[in-house]
């Protein structure tokens, strides 16, 4: 009498398992294309253990990055301010949110974010981790001004997204955490490492005399002394991703890093941006006050403002700076522009 029950149980188990099997989809690991110089010179990029890159996750993140459903009135996507053709900036001093309001910070470019080893993001370092960073603009009233619950509802009700989330994360139940995980995955693939200067370092091209002299100005402690904060041939990120007061103001309207840490010694400090792709990311500084590279160079050369938190690396502050010659300024600009990566801004994987 026992046997029929066993058969029945086995049949039940089999059908249950097979239906479960259909639901489980294992996403394909994404192979990050790391430039040779990065692989040679830098430690490994930061990929959180709870958000490994997958083909499905990156593709979903890209779709979300360009989707205006993430804004309150469906008029703005992340890409509205972070345009791929502009190295993921919008070339505006300040960006208008969905209601036409402007913030007080310049849009930061997006590339090589996986190599931000301290994982402090934004000009003032207020966001820890890329996933966390992606949460904020969506709900910020002067940016995308959306309610995350409503954003999730819109995505959940779409015909495409539930399946895409199922394939990327094993669940079709969408939430804000998974949305930001997907966006962060996409952002980690935004790698810029193929400028003329990269090719020069790889022995594939040579620099002009102006570019070479400009690089020397950049690396010379007595001249530009830019390398202490902005990387070098041995740090192809061209930033230390740290926070400095670079002498923009004598008094501070915007406390920057200091408002985040609560330490007055951090007042007036902002993240050193990478000097890659400056050709696409004007205007410059955290508040976009400088329209041109000439203005930036003039600031460091003659325009330094003294304050209690100015970085000791700023030299001859009482004289406004080190007073570079016109030739050195011009050559420094030529070098900076040699870090322009057109392959990056035209990469089809990063376009809508």
């Amino acid at each position: 009498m026992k046997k029929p029950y066993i058969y029945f149980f086995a049949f039940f188990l089999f059908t249950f398992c097979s239906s479960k099997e259909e639901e489980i989809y294992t996403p394909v690991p994404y192979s990050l294309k790391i430039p040779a110089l990065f692989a040679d010179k830098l430690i490994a990029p930061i990929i959180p253990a709870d958000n490994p890159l997958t083909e499905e996750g990156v593709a979903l993140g890209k779709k979300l990055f360009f989707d205006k459903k993430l804004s309150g009135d469906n008029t703005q996507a992340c890409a509205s301010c972070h345009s791929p053709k502009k190295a993921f900036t919008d070339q505006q001093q300040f960006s208008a949110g969905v209601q036409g309001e402007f913030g007080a910070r310049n849009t930061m470019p997006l590339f090589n974010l996986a190599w931000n080893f301290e994982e402090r993001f934004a000009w003032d370092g207020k966001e820890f981790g890329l996933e966390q960073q992606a949460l904020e603009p969506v709900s910020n009233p002067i940016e995308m001004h959306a309610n995350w619950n409503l954003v999730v509802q819109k995505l959940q009700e779409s015909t495409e997204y539930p399946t895409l989330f199922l394939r990327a994360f094993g669940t079709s139940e969408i939430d804000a955490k998974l949305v930001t995980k997907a966006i962060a995955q996409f952002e980690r693939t935004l790698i810029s490492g193929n400028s003329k200067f990269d090719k020069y370092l790889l022995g594939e091209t040579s620099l002009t005399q102006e570019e070479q002299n400009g690089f020397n100005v950049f690396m010379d402690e007595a001249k530009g002394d830019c390398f202490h904060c902005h990387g070098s041939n041995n740090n192809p990120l061209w930033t230390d991703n740290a926070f400095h007061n670079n002498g923009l103001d004598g008094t501070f309207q915007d406390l920057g890093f200091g408002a985040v840490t609560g330490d007055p010694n951090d007042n007036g400090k902002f993240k050193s941006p990478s000097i890659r792709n400056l050709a696409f990311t004007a205007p410059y500084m955290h508040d976009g006050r400088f329209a041109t590279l000439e203005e930036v160079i003039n600031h460091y050369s003659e325009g330094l403002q003294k304050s209690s938190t100015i970085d000791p690396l700023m030299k001859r502050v009482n004289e406004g700076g080190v007073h570079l010659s016109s030739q050195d300024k011009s050559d420094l600009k030529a070098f900076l522009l040699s870090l322009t990566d057109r392959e990056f801004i035209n990469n089809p994987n990063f376009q809508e």
Partner: protein
Amino acid sequence: MRKKYCLLILTFMLLTRCSEKKECCVQPEQSTVTLNFTHHWNELQITPQDFNEIKFTNENGEQLSIEKLRYLISNISLLDAKNHHLIDVGENAGTSITIPELTDESYTLSFRFGFSNEDNTDGTYQDLNSASFSVPEMLGGGYHFMQFDGKYIDNNNEASGFNYHTIRAVDRTDSDNLKFEDTSFEINLGTIVVANTTEIEIKMNLAEWFKNPNTWNLNELNTVLMPNFEAQKMMRENGETVFSLGVVN
């Protein structure tokens, strides 16, 4: 009956195996050693909370602050292979180095401040490249040994920046023929006995960088010291007395 025999045999085998292990495999005792780098201005211990305030006075009578302090040590004698460590005092990073599974016995504790010429190869250490600790090629490349930045009250009674950066000294009198002098140096802190878990304090007295044997005048030597051949040699001389052995327990 058969089960009982099996159990007996198994028990016998287990017992003999255990006793054999006891006789054959006596391992020397091993301990974990932790090197704790502490930082001082003479008798005052410094923490990151002491940074950014002009509160120290150097041998030359100049008041100064510490804003950044990172330095490199290499080839700690308690580790077998070549090794290097970047210590960032402001970020409280790298100040403790744990060495596991060290056999209990006496050791000479030594390490090198910076890199020897042999180890100071340009661009080869990914952790140091990532930390932006490189030295420009025009100065011979390689790596900083120390970045000690702060502000001092200058002769005009104003706060000015200083960058006490130490590197391998380079004489650039003839730019086509750079001459180098190895300004890294070994610090020998004597013999220590390792038993059980040992905590070893290694003290850096920052005041010594400005004191002995060269009284440092910050009004004259404050920034752009990396290409200054003579300044680098003086910094190396002053560095000799910077480190000392602290509490061992």
